[in-house]
């Protein structure tokens, strides 16, 4: 009885807290190769983000001259020489597929390159941390400052930090809205409070999210919000380069002096001196020596930190390095190992990227600048005219993706005797109805096709409706049915 009770107690009673306060992380300043790579990537990414909307691209009259513009009001997306209409949204699908595949490829080559260097969360957090270090000092100073009671100096520093953070966050939101309207005009309107409410609202939202995520949430985003760490854990393998603590070289840990003594006796001594520098510089606060883990975004800053220490104590650098699991295991067994960049996995990813990319480029290169879509009247399917001939009506939508007026002649491929008429067509040349479609827009017209009674033998027959550009010669066509009463 007692045993059963105890067992029940053990099963239902949970020890320890269910909720934990986030551990405060004070990343330390670090210098080295990977820190520099991160600085340059940060500059490049933010430079593109903040200044791209101001880049101009001449598309001729009638069209906006902003290189990258999401024109929601007119339902157009402009990207340099590409102009995308809503129905061509599959280009974005292609881009997203390529983006996912590139991520897979990065992962199988060099681990979480995205997380460590390119992810906006990483980039903005890095920027916010740099601001923090500038104002409040390095790791020790910040720990000390936070532990102190409030005093004037502390208040000044904190206010300064949050002000700069909010400034950057506001600029982030400001740059965001510039992608949705003509940037220089919008900047002027924003300054004179002439901009639409939506613009201010979105700036506000983005200011809040940037300030909250990069200033306060930081590694919590990676640990608890982002799905990628979970997915990437499943994508990496033992042949991929990852930021790795080479425990074959590092263990057993001991102090520098002790290591000298141990080595003198010929016994193995690890290079790791347990200085905790790798942990102190880590922006997510993990200990890389526990191996590859969810919290490690693989930014390589611990490599820089460890290299600095190794150089100081006169041991070879890269105790922490980009390395593969297979290499570590091979070294432990004393076997030779060579990293292979070209292997089935990477080749496959490259091949799929090439196929999808090729298909998209082909699609883009052969993109028509005109389009036609035809919708047969649903009610009625046909109408009998007074002389007994049969008429079908269609709603035809013509697309003109060029920035100037174009004239299209409508013709049909149908049995002899069939006549095409366009309601409201002004001109006809060679018996063909001619319609004019304005620049960069669509036109809906009502097309009537009439066939003599004798020509309509079947209940339904296929006809082709063609629109030919009178000057450029581009021809687009659509196939639809011509319905009759049947015999």
């Amino acid at each position: 009885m007692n045993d059963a009770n105890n067992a029940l107690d053990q099963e239902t009673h949970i020890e320890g807290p269910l909720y934990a306060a986030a551990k405060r992380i004070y990343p330390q300043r670090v210098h080295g190769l990977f820190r520099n790579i991160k600085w340059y990537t940060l500059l490049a990414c933010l430079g593109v983000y903040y200044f791209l909307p101001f880049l101009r691209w001449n598309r001729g009259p009638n069209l906006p001259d902003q290189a990258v513009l999401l024109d929601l009001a007119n339902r157009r997306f402009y990207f340099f020489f590409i102009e995308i209409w809503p129905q061509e949204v599959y280009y974005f699908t292609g881009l997203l597929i390529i983006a996912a595949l590139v991520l897979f490829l990065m992962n199988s080559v060099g681990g979480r390159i995205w997380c460590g260097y390119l992810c906006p969360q990483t980039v903005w957090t890095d920027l916010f941390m740099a601001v923090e270090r500038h104002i409040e000092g390095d790791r020790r100073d910040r720990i000390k400052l936070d532990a102190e009671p409030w005093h004037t100096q502390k208040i000044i520093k904190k206010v300064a930090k949050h002000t700069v953070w909010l400034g950057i966050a506001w600029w982030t939101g400001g740059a965001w809205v510039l992608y949705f309207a003509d940037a220089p005009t919008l900047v002027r309107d924003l300054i004179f409070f002439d901009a639409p409410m939506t613009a201010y609202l979105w700036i506000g939202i983005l200011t809040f999210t940037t300030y909250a995520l990069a200033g306060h949430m930081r590694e919590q985003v990676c640990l608890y919000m982002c799905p990628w760490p979970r997915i990437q854990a499943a994508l990496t393998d033992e042949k991929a380069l990852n930021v790795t603590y080479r425990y074959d070289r590092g263990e057993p840990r001991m102090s520098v002096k002790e290591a000298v003594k141990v080595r003198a006796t010929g016994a193995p001594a690890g290079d790791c001196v347990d200085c905790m520098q790798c942990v102190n510089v880590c922006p997510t606060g993990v200990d890389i020596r526990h191996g590859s883990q969810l919290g490690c975004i693989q930014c390589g800053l611990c490599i820089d930190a460890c290299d600095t220490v190794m150089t100081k104590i006169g041991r070879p650098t890269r105790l922490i390095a980009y390395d593969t699991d297979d290499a570590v295991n091979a070294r432990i067994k004393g076997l030779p190992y060579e990293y292979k960049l070209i292997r089935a996995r990477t080749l496959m990813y490259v091949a799929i990227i090439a196929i999808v990319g090729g298909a998209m480029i082909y699609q883009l290169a052969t993109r028509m600048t005109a389009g036609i879509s035809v919708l047969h009247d649903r009610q009625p399917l046909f109408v009998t005219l007074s002389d007994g001939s049969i008429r079908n009506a269609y709603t035809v939508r013509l697309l003109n993706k060029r920035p100037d007026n174009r004239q299209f002649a409508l013709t049909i491929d149908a049995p002899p005797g069939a006549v095409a008429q366009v309601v409201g067509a002004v001109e006809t040349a060679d018996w063909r109805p001619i319609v004019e479609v304005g620049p960069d827009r669509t036109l809906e017209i009502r097309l009537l096709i009439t066939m003599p009674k004798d020509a309509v033998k079947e209940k339904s027959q296929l006809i082709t409706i063609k629109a030919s550009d009178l000057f450029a010669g581009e021809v687009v066509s659509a196939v639809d049915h011509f319905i009759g009463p049947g015999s």
Partner: protein
Amino acid sequence: MSAHLEKDAVTGTATTGHEWDGIKELNTPLPKWWLQVFYATIIWSFGYFIVYPSWPLINGHLPGLFGYSSRAEVVKDLADLKVRRGAQATALEKASLEDILKSPDMSRIALAQGKAAFGDNCAPCHGLGGVGGKGYPNLIDDDWLWGGKLDDIHTTLVNGARWTGNDETRLSDMVGFVKQGLLKSDEADASIEYVRSLAKLDVAQGADLAKGKKVFADNCASCHGDDGKGKQEVGAPNLTDAIWLFGSDRKSMTETVYNGRMGVMPAWGNRLDPVTIKSLTVYVHSLGGGK
């Protein structure tokens, strides 16, 4: 409460004590902010209670501080729409029907407005797309009782057909010739066979077409014309073509001649505003039969 605190050997993390098939659950505490966000959303929801209509009362509900109501939004949107359409409505009102048809901008608006108004007002009888039905004229073919020109359509729309209370209404009588004793049934039957011969429909064997022709000339030709091709001035249909409003089978034709036909269309002039009627005119004209 036992003081038992089991730690997982590999990670050093405390377990929750739960075990399934030998797998122990580690106690990885949820971050506090997560819980706080949850509480914050609860507090936020009280905001909705305060600013938006929430509590039901006996005679209605609490209006909320914002005074929001979806009905008021609709009214406001409709008012906005009226203001925004003001210029277009004025343009349509001033322009002649021909001008509307010729101007792509005006006809685009008129067609859209006409289509909506047609669906609301005309489709119950004339069918969606103007297909019509037995007794309800098809509006997309090339055959018109009262004329298919813009002005004809407009007049019909404004005044209706056989609409009591409208002096201008389209008026004609297809009386019941037999019912009213104007024709004997054998005369009526002969006239039906004669009309069928005009329309190239099958004619009954041994029918006396000469008699039918005489009956037709004496009784029908005044409205339908000597040749049976109808007269739009009096709304008399062409009896020689392929279009039959009430059907071309012998039974329907007998019903028509014996008992008469009196289709009615309301006068829309009193019901719809002039701009809507103009738009309807252009729309009906564009369906395919417009002259």
